[in-house]
């Protein structure tokens, strides 16, 4: 008997990735994204606080990388994000791509700790991204 359900087979890797991420820890990552209304001199010289949007992405998994990172002694982490969760925020913010979302992200918060994005990579199957891998570095504490 064949499966006649109207599911897109290209979406299978995404569903599988989401299921795996959820079953591992299924945590939530908070991306602090800058607003686009920064076309003033004041915002360019650090005077005006720009508007921020907090994009919640789940499921996500954090893993600590091997301690080879030396600069200032901060640990490096890899954040694995669900591509469907990222796409949802890309649509919400009306952005062109996930890269645009990551380019506008100031910090990533996971379990109350802030991180800075060092680099972004993605995994694809059937020409479609099913998860994003963000290389993160712990951010220093900012003044309140």
């Amino acid at each position: 008997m064949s499966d006649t359900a109207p599911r897109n087979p290209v979406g299978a890797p995404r569903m599988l990735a989401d299921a795996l991420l959820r079953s591992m820890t299924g945590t939530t990552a908070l991306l602090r994204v800058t607003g686009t209304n920064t076309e003033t001199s004041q915002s360019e010289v650090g005077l005006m606080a720009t508007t921020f949007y907090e994009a919640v992405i789940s499921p996500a998994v954090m893993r600590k990388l091997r301690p080879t990172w030396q600069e200032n002694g901060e640990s490096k982490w890899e954040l694995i994000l669900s591509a469907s969760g990222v796409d949802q925020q890309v649509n919400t913010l009306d952005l062109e791509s996930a890269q645009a979302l990551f380019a506008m992200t100031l910090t990533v918060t996971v379990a109350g700790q802030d991180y800075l994005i060092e680099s972004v990579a993605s995994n694809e199957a059937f020409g479609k991204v099913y998860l994003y891998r963000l290389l993160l570095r712990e951010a220093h504490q900012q003044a309140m």
Partner: protein
Amino acid sequence: MQNAKDSFYIALRTRLAAINPERTILLRGTVRPGILVEDAEAPFSQLPNDVFVLRWSGLGVDLNLVSTMVAKQCEIIYQTCGSQSYGGLDRGRSLSKMDEELASILQPFYTAKLDYTATPPTAMLTKVFWDEPGFTPVVTQRDRLSRSATVMVYSYQEQGE
């Protein structure tokens, strides 16, 4: 000194937009002239190519004057990999173009000092001025050429600064 730093950056930005409007950067969702202050933006894992990055470093104060003079060192860093249409083979030319642009936007070596905390910015009594830039040798990192220029920026402290 913050007013002098702000005025210096805005002067360079305005001059760059006038001499090469095509040198732009998409930053925080906005297209702006290709110059930025490093400490007023999100930390970069790698500095962007084909833009001027202002990094403030050294500080000196001369108290033996009628008005206190403050000097701050500004390092202007820029790098390029050339253009895609030339497969990066024009990276030397791109860097030369940036050298020329930087030398142009630094002249004249002064600008009005404005207080950017006010809206609109208010003109102050003194000017901000700087000396000639000192260019470092080119650093080649695989396909990337980078250079920096150092400028000492001076200003007199005014009432309320």
